[in-house]
């Protein structure tokens, strides 16, 4: 297979060259356990501390407000569970209908265990209903967990506004910022959030490393119980190489912030606008204003997403789809359904998510090959033929 045109960076990202290089010594000669009494292991302590500082710096946090976890899902589960543990008498959880499964399915699991869960609705642009949020709050609410930016549409939620209300009422607030960290600037000094999840492999660190920010003073209960690592907040021998990698990835991300944002949104907008102009019955899912710079979710009506993806795959183009068939489930994306995307468009959604390593030639390639694919699949489809008359997919 030739080098892919990789436009699926909300799924995972490539490991940055600097990151891999920083990690290698810890997979080779520096294999010690940081908890050991000998110098060979003990020398890792300062390096882990440096990595923690870099992760903290990216989000404007203090180093001791960061604990390392195995992934974003673990961070999410830990945050929600901790809030329930420290508030045993409060049995109400508020989240949204468009959360990542790491929160969404975990909350559904808790609902089966007897917790009361409110899943807040979104409008047809994927924007959160703040009205519903205010109404849902009550004295029983132990935690509110709302994602910073949606993984499928890139829509950004008003975390600051929500956090301000919750701070006044003394309710714990967690945000799953896995898709936001590294893509948009975050500053925990001003953001009224108690806990925040991030994941390494979404920002060019490897898979299998995540972090949870826990604001100083927040009551916390560990999820993985065992040794004293992470100041007894998360047991398990430190994943040294990956922690070093995450630190390096955060450092690189911080250095690139200004230029990367402009680069991503320029490429994304070019891709989006060209596809909308050159394909009939194409529409963007989600708010185009408050959105991550790297993400676009486009529905091509009357065609099915898996078919589009596999045709793109012939050109080595990697994207993803909210279509039922693409996931192995029988129902299309819960996010798009919550947004009330019409059925004609629901199965034909394609998400392109870019990274700093994409270039304009790659985007031009997609703009060249996708419209004929859509045209071809439209010719196969029994639907929408009347709309097609007179319109030509260039």
């Amino acid at each position, binding site marked *: 297979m030739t080098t892919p045109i990789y436009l699926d960076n909300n799924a995972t990202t490539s490991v940055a060259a600097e990151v891999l290089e920083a990690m290698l010594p810890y997979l080779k000669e520096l294999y010690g356990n940081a908890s050991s009494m000998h110098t060979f292991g003990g020398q890792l302590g300062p390096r882990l501390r440096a990595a923690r500082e870099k992760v903290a710096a990216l989000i404007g946090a203090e180093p001791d407000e960061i604990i390392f976890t195995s992934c974003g899902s673990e961070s999410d589960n830990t945050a929600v569970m901790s809030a329930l543990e420290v508030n045993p008498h409060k049995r109400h959880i508020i989240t949204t209908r468009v959360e990542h499964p790491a929160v969404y399915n975990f909350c559904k699991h808790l609902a089966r265990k007897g917790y009361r869960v409110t899943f807040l609705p979104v409008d047809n642009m994927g924007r959160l209903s703040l009205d519903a949020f205010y109404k849902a709050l009550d004295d029983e609410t132990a935690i509110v967990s709302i994602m910073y930016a949606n993984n499928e549409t890139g829509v950004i939620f008003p975390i600051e506004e929500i956090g301000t209300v919750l701070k006044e009422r003394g309710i714990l607030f967690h945000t799953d910022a896995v898709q936001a960290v590294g893509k948009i600037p975050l500053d925990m000094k001003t953001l009224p959030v108690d806990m925040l999840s991030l994941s390494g492999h979404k920002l060019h660190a490897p898979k299998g490393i995540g972090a949870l920010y826990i604001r100083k003073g927040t009551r916390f209960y560990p999820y993985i119980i065992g040794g004293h690592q992470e100041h007894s907040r998360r047991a398990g021998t430190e994943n040294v190489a990956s922690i070093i990698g995450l630190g390096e990835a955060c450092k690189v991300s911080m250095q690139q912030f200004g230029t990367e944002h402009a680069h991503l949104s320029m490429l994304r907008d070019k891709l989006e606008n060209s596809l909308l102009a050159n394909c009939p019955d194409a529409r963007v899912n989600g708010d185009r204003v408050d959105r991550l710079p790297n993400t676009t979710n486009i529905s091509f009506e009357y065609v*099915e997403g898996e078919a589009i993806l596999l045709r793109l795959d012939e050109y080595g183009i990697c994207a993803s789809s909210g279509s039922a*068939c693409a996931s192995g*489930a029988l129902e299309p994306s819960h996010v798009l359904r919550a947004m009330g995307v019409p059925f004609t468009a629901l199965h034909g959604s394609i998400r392109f998510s870019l990274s700093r390593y994409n270039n304009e030639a790659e985007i031009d390639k997609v703009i060249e090959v996708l419209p004929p694919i859509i045209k071809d699949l439209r010719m196969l489809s*029994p639907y929408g033929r009347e709309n097609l008359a007179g319109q030509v997919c260039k």
Partner: protein
Amino acid sequence: MWEYTKQVRDLFLHPKNVGEVEHPDAVGEVGSIICGDALKLTLKIDKETGRILDAKFQTFGCASAIASSSALTELVKGKTLDEALNITNKDIADFLGGLPEEKMHCSVMGQEALDAAIANYRGKAPVRESGERVVCKCFEVTEEKIRKVITENRLTTVEEVTNYTKAGGGCGTCIPEIEAILKSIWALKPLPEKPKKSGRLTNLQKIALIQDVIEREIRPRLQADNGDIELIDVEGPQVIVALRAMCVGCPMGGVTIKGIEEKLRELVSSDIVVEARTE
């Protein structure tokens, strides 16, 4: 990513018989855009001989739906209507060198479109409008279809029924009904031979299935006689159980164990040996 065969990929990338035949003699339309796949089959039929002269399709759906539709048109061309009616979803899947289990419903859709087209030609109402009872509301799957697919493909679990028909894959409220249909079919007949399937159970699936059979089939009966049973361990074909309550020391214990073994052999795996652990 799905592991599609070369045949599926080829027919998806270069489908044969796309479009509508002119002035079709028969039209079969199944599925809907809401469900995520739909197929419109048009046939040209020689009225003298009843032979299918031409077949074309239009499909909204994934790669395997498109390939299955194209395979169907290749299979029916040149056949008489009666020959065509013998085509099963399995024939379509075989033509494609097999389909992933979760995609078998694509082959079922092809067979349904063919049935609908022939019914249309012969002036019968399509199943959908015939007042058939809809079991799965999410995907509009009728009881007749579920029964047909279960018997033709020898399905025994709800999961399989979902893979083949989509029924039960949405809200899930119809799952007890599908279970009841499965029960009503296989309670009357001996279970189908399925060597391929039993070999593919993972250990966890097997334990779950055994537990399930004990909970649903065996415990209620024992409890009715004030007895009870607990699954202790599964080691290969050996299933170790403990009889509880009134079953302890019951002179009929041996008979009970034999009955449990028969049930598990029937519903899980033919090589199961049940042993009672005394405590």
